[in-house]
């Protein structure tokens, strides 16, 4: 049997049924992005009137926040769809069905995009309307930044799902917290040059660092730095390959440990 779009669609349908049947789940998708936008947007509005405006040119703070949300929510959307199976004790049914691991991952990626769309579209509209987010200024770069950050989010989400398969819900908190390790390192709100020397190699190994540097280059100089996009792309390829390998290894470990049928415990 080969890759089946129908099986991917079946799993997506299962998550869509769940989303539309639960308004708290839908609300949660837009609640945090909008709350963060309001907090950081007002901070930017205040700071622009009282300090060095070059820091905030073109709405850099809000742009950074929005792209950070893409990275963070991309990973959360991926991981939470997987967690829904563990929470509902449905994982055994899924793993015993003909659904292949790659189809499972494809469904999680699709749902991650859908959840991002639900959360980010209203947030971006608000950011443009009230906080000077200049979507036109980012132009085609925004699409590239978006895609690169989502792929990084998926890579991290894949490892988290592997850890949950292997260790059960004991690893659930990683789904909510692991991305914050990236926060200070990938220079969301400040340039790479701010970091101390020993942290820079770490930061440079992260695809999002190059994306956020690229975002600042567009906003401050009006230049889309293709070299930064290329770095981020190559790093993403490496990251997603490592994540796929880690997921496969953790799945195999889970089979060996017999933990697949008791993942809810």
């Amino acid at each position, binding site marked *: 049997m080969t890759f089946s779009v129908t099986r991917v669609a079946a799993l997506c*349908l299962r998550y869509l*049924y769940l989303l539309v049947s639960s308004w708290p789940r839908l609300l949660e998708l837009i609640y945090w992005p909008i709350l963060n936008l309001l907090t950081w947007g007002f901070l930017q509005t205040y700071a622009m009137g009282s300090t060095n405006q070059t820091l905030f040119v073109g709405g850099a703070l809000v742009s950074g926040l929005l792209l950070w949300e893409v990275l963070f929510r991309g990973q959360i959307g991926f991981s939470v769809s997987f967690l829904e199976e563990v929470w509902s004790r449905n994982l055994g049914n899924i793993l*015993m069905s003909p659904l292949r691991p790659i189809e499972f991952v494809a469904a999680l990626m699709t749902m991650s995009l859908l959840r991002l769309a639900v959360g980010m579209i209203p947030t971006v509209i608000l950011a443009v309307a009230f906080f000077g987010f200049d979507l036109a200024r980012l132009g085609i770069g925004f699409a590239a930044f978006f895609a690169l950050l989502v792929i990084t989010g998926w890579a991290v989400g894949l490892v988290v799902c592997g850890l949950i398969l292997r260790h059960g819900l004991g690893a659930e908190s990683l789904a909510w917290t692991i991305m914050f390790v990236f926060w200070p390192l990938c220079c969301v709100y400040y340039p790479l040059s701010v970091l101390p020397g020993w942290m820079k190699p770490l930061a440079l190994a992260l695809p999002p660092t190059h994306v956020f540097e690229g975002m600042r280059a567009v906003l401050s100089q009006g230049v889309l730095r293709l070299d930064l996009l290329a770095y981020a792309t190559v790093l993403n390829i490496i990251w997603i390959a490592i994540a796929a390998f880690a997921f496969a290894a953790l799945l195999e470990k889970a089979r060996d440990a017999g933990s697949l049928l008791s993942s809810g415990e």
Partner: protein
Amino acid sequence: MTSPATIAVDALVKDYGPVRAVDGISFAVASGSTAALLGGNGAGKSTTIGMIMGLVKPTSGTVTVLGTDMARRRHDVLHRMNFESPYVDMPHRLTVRQNLTVFGMLYGVADIRGRIATLAEALDLVDLLDRPSGKLSAGQKTRVALAKALVNEPEVMLLDEPTASLDPDTADWIRSHLERYRAARGATILLASHNMGEVERLCDRVIMLKQGRIEDDAAPGELVRRYGRSNLEEVFLDVARGRREAAA
């Protein structure tokens, strides 16, 4: 003439660290028959079923289902199998119809609507189809789980305690349905159970496990005769307490 084995287990071993959960068991389940794995807690039933499903990796030995090595190529035959266990649920917020639709698609059922209608009629689910699965009683949930297990008309069914925690009436109803399905489809069924009445009624054969090994393997009536007991429950107690010689 013996039917070809649909499930074949050969020298199967499973170690969890220093603990040997399954210790070199071998058996075959003939096509169209029903066999039971019987044993006390920790006897190795669930681990054996897990290895047959391909969800638990054997330390050594092989499992083939429908001629396919489950450790390496399980996805080649999963669409011809299904399983039910009280330890696995279906999404609570989804209605019965939504759940069956999703699983129908996952198993590649051609006419999902028609199949759901047939199952709803057969399993008395018509009035439940548009209710959330989480709002059903234990008996109703078991019927829905059975509908899911039958959605692809499987040739092989693996059932882990199929009537656990059900009242006698519902349990009897489920057993009757399984008997009818096996007869109509010619399906092969392997079940793990603690319910001796269920095993005596449904199974052609009982594989008795103790501490990961096969302690005995025969038809229920033959086991009762062999141990000189009046029913399978007494045989189970003899095996569990190591009283075979005394009983004989």
